[in-house]
């Protein structure tokens, strides 16, 4: 049966296709385990120099919000910063979680580069971020009006990510 001799080729073809597709994907981006689930319960004091702290209650106040995890020692955070400012300027509420930072460094960073965050939470030991499933900075979450996490982006935001991921997620949440 000649068919049996074609089996190795068939298996290889399937493998090759999978390998080809995988070249377009990134093995290090892990999907969020909390998509569609409520934000974890937490309450954080504001970053030094600011007055509004961040808690899970704030995220259930019926508005769609964006939560951005950042740190002063994080280079890519600096790169995405102007885009976060633009998001805020376009009318979207953005909150910030400051991950494992010295208070004075975070304060200086926000003072120098601009503070796009309505509320900030200083996560000094990173524990709250672990509850969010954070494994690197920066990360950005979209939260709907009921406090459910509907989208997560790992890594610095690029214009494409804003247009293709964040804005559509916000639009979905508003419906």
């Amino acid at each position: 049966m000649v068919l049996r001799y074609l089996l190795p080729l068939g298996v290889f073809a399937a493998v090759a296709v999978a390998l080809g597709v995988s070249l377009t994907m990134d093995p290090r981006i892990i999907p969020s385990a909390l998509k569609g689930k409520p934000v974890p319960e937490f309450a954080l004091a504001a970053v030094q120099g600011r007055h509004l702290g961040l808690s899970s209650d704030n995220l259930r106040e019926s508005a769609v919000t964006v939560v951005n995890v950042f740190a002063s020692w994080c280079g890519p955070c600096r790169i995405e910063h102007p885009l976060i400012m633009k998001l805020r300027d376009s009318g979207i509420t953005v909150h910030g979680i400051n991950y494992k930072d010295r208070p004075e460094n975070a304060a200086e960073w926000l003072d120098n580069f601009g503070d796009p965050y309505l509320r900030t939470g200083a996560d000094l030991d990173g524990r709250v971020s672990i509850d969010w499933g954070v494994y690197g900075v920066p990360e950005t979450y979209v939260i709907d009006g009921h406090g459910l996490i509907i989208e997560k982006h790992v890594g610095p935001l690029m214009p494409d990510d804003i247009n293709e991921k964040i804005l559509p997620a916000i639009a979905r949440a508003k419906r």
Partner: protein
Amino acid sequence: MIGEIGHYALILALMLALVQGTLPLVGAVRGIGPWIAVARPAAVGQFVFIALAFTMLMAGYIVSDFSIENVALNSHTAKPLLYKISGVWGNHEGSLVLWVLILAIFGAAVALFGANLPPTLRARVLAVQGLVGVGFLLFTIGTSNPFARLDPAPAQGQGLNPLLQDPGLAFHPPFLYLGYVGFSMAFAFAIAALIEGRVDPAWARWVRPWTLAAWCSLTIGVALGSWWAYYELGWGGWWFWDPVENASFMPWLAGTALLHSATVVEKRDALKSWTILLAILTFSLSLLGTFLVRSGVLTSVHAFATDPERGVFILAFLIVVIGGSLVLYAWRAPSLKGGGLFAPISREGGLILNNLLLTTACATVLLGTLYPLFLDVLSGGEAKVSVGPPYFNGTFVPIMLPLVLAAAIGPLLPWKRADLLGTLGRLQFVFGAVLICGLVAWYIAEDGPVLAFFGLALAAWLFVGSLFEVSERTKLGRVALGESWRRARGQPRATYGMTVAHIGLACTIFGVVASTSWESEKLQVMRPGETMTIAGYTLRFEGMRDLRGPNYDAVRGTFEVTRDGAPIATLFPEVRTFTDPPMQTTEAAIRPTLTADLYAAVGDPDGTGGWATRIYHKPFVHWIWFGAVIMTFGGLISLTDRRLRIGVPTRRRRARPALKPAAA
């Protein structure tokens, strides 16, 4: 100047490879003698030019010629000479030059030492080898040119990953590449055989030395990598089922199966199309490994800086080479008619069992390695799983167990038809010896998981069984000692190679079982002056000292080791901080002996004068790598077997005495 010569040499090598890959193939089909003859000089010439390019690259590293971009990115004037040299292959581009160099070495070796091969077969083999070389040279020159220049040349290089500045790791890639690149020769032989439409015992004999040489190198290469991980990576592990480790292990499993199935082709003219397929698959796994390491589709500690663009090229190459060879296989293999018949219970049957288990084990490792990728692709990035050691240990080990059992029985079975019960009966003596070993182990160890004792019994079974097979062959104890000795001297070397290799495997299994099951591990925070005990040893922590190395700062701890009050040794574990690039490594202090290793590592300070410490006692762990060395030695013994040097029978014109007719 160095860079220019090297670059030019690579391009010339590519030209020669193109010639080598085309003319002899056409010549063999059309019977054009000069074209067939081109293969040998082309192969040698290709080797000469690639060797020149490699030498130029190495020269660039040695003199720290930072106008060569590769040297500037991966070297540093402060690096010791040995690591400047090993830095040549410690990066993607340089390692590719090593790849094509070894490809060319094997080609030149067949050209120069393959006089026993029929000319057309040799021409086809070299042509296939040349075509593979064309692909890799194109890849190197086109996307990963090691001789790219920097103008102006920087004053200092950007150093090398400090983890790679290590003697064990310096030699690990060359052996590894000799191994899995060397399997390209088995592949070339298989393709040549498919083109010729003929696989016969002579073919199996001709392909064997090259396969054996590659297998021996790969065994050492994998063992070196494992040993290096043990003493370098901080926590005493020696195998992590990391994708890149698996990428080198799979060709080893397939290559081992190939060595066994080629025996059936050679001795019994059977299992031909399966052996051809296996030869293709072994090298395909090597190529797949190259793809996995360099394309970035899987995360791994070992991966080079990855670039999906390179991945596309390698994938295209994979599709052409593997796809093409499997098409050729589907087309030509059905016409390979099998020869010798055999009963299911026979030496052939045993070897089929060997192949079944090894190939399934290899497929299991492949499945586990690629599964995260498949799932990621099929789910569009939404479902991701990790496949780590628990999976592989749970699947690979159960599949290999029956193989080890069979390895002691198989060599005792005759060809064609065997009496299994009778053979098992003869093995009573071995059963008995194994039982005694088990009881002795139980007495010494006093305690341990039941499975561990089974593991030890398995290792003993293989060890004693292999020796028993030799005694059976030489009829030891059943005839006069002198007669046994005469028989022993008359045995073909390959049988001793088999015995030694199986014994090596038994040693490795023993090391694995003993060190995993009876390992002691103690984790604690220690202050200077405190002591701890492990496995009868007492370790006294004397404190930490700062010191400076050639390109790092370190803190070094001192442990005084005593046993029953008598001083045994002093251990000096370190934590090293490198500046260029910034990195921290843990250097464990190991005291290896034949029966166990004492292993000490220090971690972080707790801020109040105490230090986190890890102390291990690992029984017989070095037997894992001794076993691998013994296995390699067995392979080398087989390589010297006389029958591998027998050439093509030539017609002899010689008057032969007339045969007398039989008496009526």
